[in-house]
């Protein structure tokens, strides 16, 4: 129950004078009507229950709970309707966006889009989901294709580092194939002179490729690099657990004092072995859920999602970059 205006005014006046106007007793009196009934001991409660059962068979309570159940159903019915309408509205809006901003597989168009933005993320991260309905191959192929598309957009926009998170880590098993798919996609976008590419997973050697030799004489494209990092759930909590194990063993062999463990040490180790903090995290799902994304690194990352969006789409990428350019970092100030 909210305060009535009269009581709120009395409370604020008292607060203004540093709580010296009212005595504690007066304050209690002010609050009393708003408090729930005092808790009863278990014995008292049982006794009360018994008496109520005998006298009125709990009719009042039964009616009350029925009334609440009814209101619950009504709320959810209306909310359901609202959600449907919102989803329909967003579907239309997102469609219009994606028609208006389409990349047409042309890096120049993407560059045109991002040229007006004040700043770009240096490290972009995305969460992809493996949608496999029993068929292993189809979901994987889709995933690789999405990863390649995103890589191509980033290369066009001039974002040097992308990390792609997928919970199960299936992509990590297909590192060379992913590299090949991305390289193909890049050549489809850029033609002959595409940027040099490295695809890696934490704790593993990267698969690298030189920029294509043909037609890259003194070209500005040649200087470009794109590095892709594939992440999975084991780079999240498990990496912190592994670090703890290592530190514990060191402490057990008296190589380290527990007091030496500082945020800087943990940060240095985790950014060394997994990755640094991404600037922007794009979610392509309909709502915000991190599904096991590395917790340490996500501290100040701008999280972007488009409400009720389904699937990887260029408009999400573009709108995410716009949002990032507008956002201001205050670092607690």
């Amino acid at each position, binding site marked *: 129950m909210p305060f009535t205006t009269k009581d709120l005014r009395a409370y604020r006046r008292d607060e203004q004078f540093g709580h010296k106007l009212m005595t504690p007793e007066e304050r209690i009196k002010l609050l009393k009507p*708003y408090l729930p009934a005092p808790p009863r001991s278990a014995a008292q409660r049982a006794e009360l229950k018994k008496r109520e059962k005998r006298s009125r068979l709990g009719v009042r309570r039964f009616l009350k709970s029925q009334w609440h159940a009814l209101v*619950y159903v009504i709320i959810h019915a209306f909310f*359901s309707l609202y959600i449907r309408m919102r989803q329909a509205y967003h579907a239309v809006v997102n469609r219009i966006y994606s028609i208006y901003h389409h990349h047409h597989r042309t890096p120049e168009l993407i560059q045109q889009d991002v040229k007006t933005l004040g700043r770009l993320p240096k490290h972009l991260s995305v969460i992809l989901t493996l949608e496999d309905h029993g068929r292993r191959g189809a979901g994987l192929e889709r995933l690789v294709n999405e990863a390649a598309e995103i890589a191509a957009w980033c290369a066009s926009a001039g974002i040097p580092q992308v990390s792609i998170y997928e919970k199960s880590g299936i992509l990590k098993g297909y590192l060379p194939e992913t590299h090949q798919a991305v390289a193909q996609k890049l050549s489809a976008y850029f033609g002959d002179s595409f940027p040099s590419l490295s695809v890696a997973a934490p704790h593993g050697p990267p698969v690298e490729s030189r920029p294509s030799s043909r037609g890259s004489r003194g070209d500005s494209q040649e200087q470009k690099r794109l590095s892709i990092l594939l992440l999975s759930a084991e780079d999240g909590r498990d990496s*912190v657990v592994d670090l703890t194990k290592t530190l514990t063993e060191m*402490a057990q062999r008296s190589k380290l004092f527990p007091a030496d463990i500082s945020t800087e040490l943990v*940060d240095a180790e985790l950014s060394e072995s997994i990755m640094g903090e991404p600037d922007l995290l794009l979610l392509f799902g309909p709502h*915000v859920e991190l599904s*096991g994304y590395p917790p340490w690194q996500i501290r100040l990352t701008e999280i972007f999602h488009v409400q009720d969006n389904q699937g990887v789409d260029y408009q999400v990428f573009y709108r995410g970059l716009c949002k990032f350019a507008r956002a201001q970092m205050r670092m607690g100030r």
Partner: protein
Amino acid sequence: MSDLYLSRARNWFMHSPPAEWALSRLRETLIGALRQGPIPQHVAFVMDGNRRYARSHKIETIEGHHLGFEALARVLEVCYKCGVKAVTVYAFSIENFNRPKYEVDGIMQLAKVKLEQLIQHGELLERYGASVRVLGQRDLISPDVLDVVDRAVATTAHNKECILNICFPYTSREEITTAIRTTVEDYSTTPRPHNNTFSQSRITQKLMSKQGGLSTDGLASIRESSPAPPQSRTDDLDDSVSSSSTLPPDSPPSKSENGGNVTIYPNAETITDETITSHLYTAGCPPLDLFVRTSGVERLSDFMLWQCHQDTQIFFLDCMWPEFDLWHFLPVLVEWQRRQSKLEREERPRRRVKQA
């Protein structure tokens, strides 16, 4: 001009006793209705936007924080009446010490005064059965505030119904680091209690006495009081002897003998993410179900990183924290309930497939 009159008239009407009574009835009904569905067990709030609210309403910054406190009281009431078991609020970040000094002092003063009142009205939280905990780096709190904090925590510690976690100088990275550090300390400085160690001489003595058929009273009593049967005891002995050289991963205690003085450390390989979770400040709270941040900023800002990065539903709302009320929280809760029941529907057939 007419606009002004209209808003005045509306204000007057909304604050008239009958309207207020009707509103409070409506609130009660809505809360009662929400209780019919699933309710999140642990909710976290980032109370962001107090200063922007103050700026846009042309009032002092510290006034904004006071209004933020009122919003917190409202929201806590809604949460506990709905049946939420634990609420965690981000009151003050370690990074906030970078703010102007008068503002930091103002917030500290606010916290001190409010907690002092809480101590004075001990029965207030007793009605809700709520206990207060203050999470964060205690050594950054000034001694006079720390004293009040400790007293407030102590006076409410016996309440068991629900928990209010106030994160006060807190960052999640600091929390995780502390959890790692205490885990390492646990595993490296406190050897296992000595009743777990087996003295080889005692066992050989016992074996000998068994073979000899001499069961004196003293030995029999030892055998009765020790819980493990004799065979497993010798197994353990074998294990620990071999572990000194090879250290198999499945034997929990590892021994290193330094000149007869036995120090036993628990095996580091037994550390799991639950070990770290249980060393966090939020140990003992149910898993985080709902994360709400106001003021339209879409960042976690170093809050509950470990707790919310798995299947927590995260909501970023556009309203400022002092405006936050049941009317903003209701859609969030209803959407959470909707997703929860959807998840349950999806889980059920899958489980049936697994069983078949």
